[in-house]
């Protein structure tokens, strides 16, 4: 009778005849045998030969089997080395001692070869099982360690991407559960060249790394296009197209994207699938709910994607409160949801914006909901224009190749007016001129303002007087979208002229539209306060550029920058 796999078996027995007999029985079963006469020898032999199984006489001189068993088990560590006690101990107490010392089985004298073979096989099965369990445990531990490490690296990489923006700006307060990233929540913020602020709160479907992976290209588009001066509409279109292209069908990204214009005291926003946002007064009253009006990003093909944004006035001190669905969808033990009502109660009860997040989290905890780890809260405050810290821009070239004597002009007509935003291209072109670089924010603001004035008032004939209040704003932008949607007749021409002047130079910008013009004289007498939102941006342009004129009955705006 031979074993499947030969083992090394230690036989420790003080009776010479018994030892001889036992060794022969075990050897005949195909195993290798090492023998010891007492406990001390047994422990030493175990350390030296590392047998897989031990047959141990209970009562031996020098060191008895109980002590030897304890030492052998200690030496074996986590591996299971089965110990079969050889004993003719009849009384219960002795058997209990064998087990307590670490024995796994007994074998009584006289020895039976058949029973011993069966016991060795049974013990060998146990031993293998334990070895497999240990091996798998170590494998799981290694995989787990590996996974954690990957997540740490992924998070570190993502944090670099996500925190290259301006989440630390003084007007932004946010709270994200530590591993919200791996639940697909995403919060990005960055200044535009003109000093506006873009913020994105997103929530990818799914969890874990797949959700985080989608966030990377989204962040890249967000930062890249914001830095280049693209508006929300272009950025949204690009984000949607990119996610649609790269994400699997069942994955998409709910997102709320907004542009905070400190100069105009307005907010432009687009909500696709996120929970309602809130426009709050300085005192924290809810002025307006900002619901989702669109499908999330990454669902619709580019030609069906709706990039219509909404614009609202937002006075200095007023705030926007944004959240991810982890807040309202937190459920209690009976799967009852925290819901919007409870959130509004918290908002109404809040007296100090600084503790609003704490109050929301307390309310969630008090609600008894299971704490979710995908909660994002964001509170953004409008600042007066002069409180916004300008961003230092780093240029990589020396500027020595600046072109200083040139002019160009081009004209946008028909449908191109609604689809194409020329401002980022023009600003990039003008950045080639070293002397203009410190003013690129202003240039961006002025060009944007002149272009949108020419388009909205000149070509589309929209009445800026509409923008007196929030309702008027909504109506104004509704009309704008409607008119752009129809066939557009007319054109906007932009001319740039750059001339050297002594050590510096000057830039003349002319923006001409095909519209009816306006009463330039009336503008020059009205005070900035009366103009309010309806000032056709004139006061803004005048504030940013020293030399601004409106000619040809208001159809031509002319601005000069010098350096």
């Amino acid at each position, binding site marked *: 009778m031979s074993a499947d796999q030969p083992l090394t078996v230690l036989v420790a027995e003080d009776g010479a005849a018994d030892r*001889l007999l036992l060794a022969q029985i075990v050897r005949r079963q195909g195993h290798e045998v090492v023998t010891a006469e007492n406990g001390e020898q047994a422990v030493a032999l175990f350390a030296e030969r590392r047998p897989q199984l031990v047959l141990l006489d209970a*009562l031996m001189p020098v060191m008895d089997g109980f002590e030897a068993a304890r030492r052998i088990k200690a030496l074996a560590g986590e591996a299971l080395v089965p110990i079969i006690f050889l004993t003719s101990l009849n009384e219960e107490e002795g058997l209990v001692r064998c087990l307590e010392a670490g024995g796994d089985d007994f074998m009584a*004298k*006289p020895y039976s070869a058949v029973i011993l073979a069966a016991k060795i096989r049974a013990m060998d099965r146990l031993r293998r099982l334990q070895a497999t369990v240990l091996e798998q445990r170590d494998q799981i531990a290694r995989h787990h360690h590996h996974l954690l490490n990957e997540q740490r690296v992924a998070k570190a990489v993502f944090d670099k991407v996500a925190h290259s923006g301006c989440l630390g700006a003084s007007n932004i307060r946010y709270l994200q559960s530590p591993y919200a990233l791996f639940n697909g929540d995403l919060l990005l913020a960055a200044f535009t060249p003109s000093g506006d602020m873009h913020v994105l709160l997103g929530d990818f479907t799914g969890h874990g790394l797949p959700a985080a992976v989608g966030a990377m290209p989204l962040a890249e588009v967000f930062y890249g296009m914001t830095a280049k001066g693209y508006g929300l509409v272009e950025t949204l279109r690009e984000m949607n197209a990119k996610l649609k292209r790269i994400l699997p069908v069942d994955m998409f990204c709910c997102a709320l994207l907004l542009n905070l214009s400190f100069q105009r005291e307005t907010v432009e926003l687009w909500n696709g699938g996120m929970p309602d946002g809130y426009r709050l007064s300085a005192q924290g009253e809810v002025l307006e709910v900002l619901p989702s009006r669109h499908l999330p990003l990454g669902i619709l093909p580019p030609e069906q994607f709706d990039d219509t944004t909404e614009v609202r006035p937002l006075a200095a001190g007023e705030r926007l409160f944004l959240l991810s669905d982890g807040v309202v969808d937190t459920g209690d033990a009976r799967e009852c949801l925290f819901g919007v009502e409870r959130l509004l109660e918290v908002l109404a009860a809040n007296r100090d914006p600084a503790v609003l997040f704490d109050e929301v989290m307390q309310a969630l905890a008090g609600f008894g909901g299971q704490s979710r780890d995908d909660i994002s809260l964001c509170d953004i405050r409008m600042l007066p224009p002069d409180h916004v810290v300008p961003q230092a821009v780093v240029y990589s070239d020396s500027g020595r190749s600046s072109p200083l004597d040139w002019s160009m002009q081009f004209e946008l007509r028909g449908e191109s007016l609604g689809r194409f935003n020329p401002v980022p291209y023009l600003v990039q072109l003008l950045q080639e001129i070293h002397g203009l670089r410190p003013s690129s924010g202003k240039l961006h603001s002025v060009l944007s303002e002149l272009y949108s004035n020419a388009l909205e008032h000149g070509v589309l004939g929209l009445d800026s007087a509409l923008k007196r209040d929030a309702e008027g704003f909504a109506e104004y932008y509704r009309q704008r979208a409607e008119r752009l949607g129809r066939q557009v007749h007319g054109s906007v021409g932009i001319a740039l002229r750059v001339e050297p002047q002594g050590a510096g130079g000057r830039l003349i910008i002319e923006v001409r539209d095909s519209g009816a013009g306006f009463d330039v004289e009336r503008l020059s007498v009205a005070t900035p306060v009366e103009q309010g939102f309806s000032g056709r941006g004139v006061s803004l342009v005048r504030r940013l550029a020293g030399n601004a004129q409106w000619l040809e009955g208001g159809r031509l705006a002319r601005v000069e920058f010098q350096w």
Partner: protein
Amino acid sequence: MADMHIDQKVLSDLREVMEDGYLQLLETFLEDSERRLNQLHEAKDADELGLAAHSFKGSSSNMGAVGLAELCQQLEERVRQQSLYGIEDLINRIDQEYLEVQRFYRGERQRIAAE
């Protein structure tokens, strides 16, 4: 007569298991038993006596010396129960029984050696 002292089934199993080592087993048992008997006679206390009886019981039973094993077990139990009355007599009976077992195994040894 031998059947009272030796279990023939155990004996035949031993022969089969030990193969060529059978002779060596017989010699080892005979030597070992002398040592056990000495331990019985020279035990200084109950523990030593009990341990010697226990070991002699184990090896006797392995060798199929059922009578000897039975007497050793009686001795072991008497020692444990600390009823030492008549212990001398029991040890004498063990001596007597061993003489029978010794005679049998010496005969067995001669028979095997002659083969």
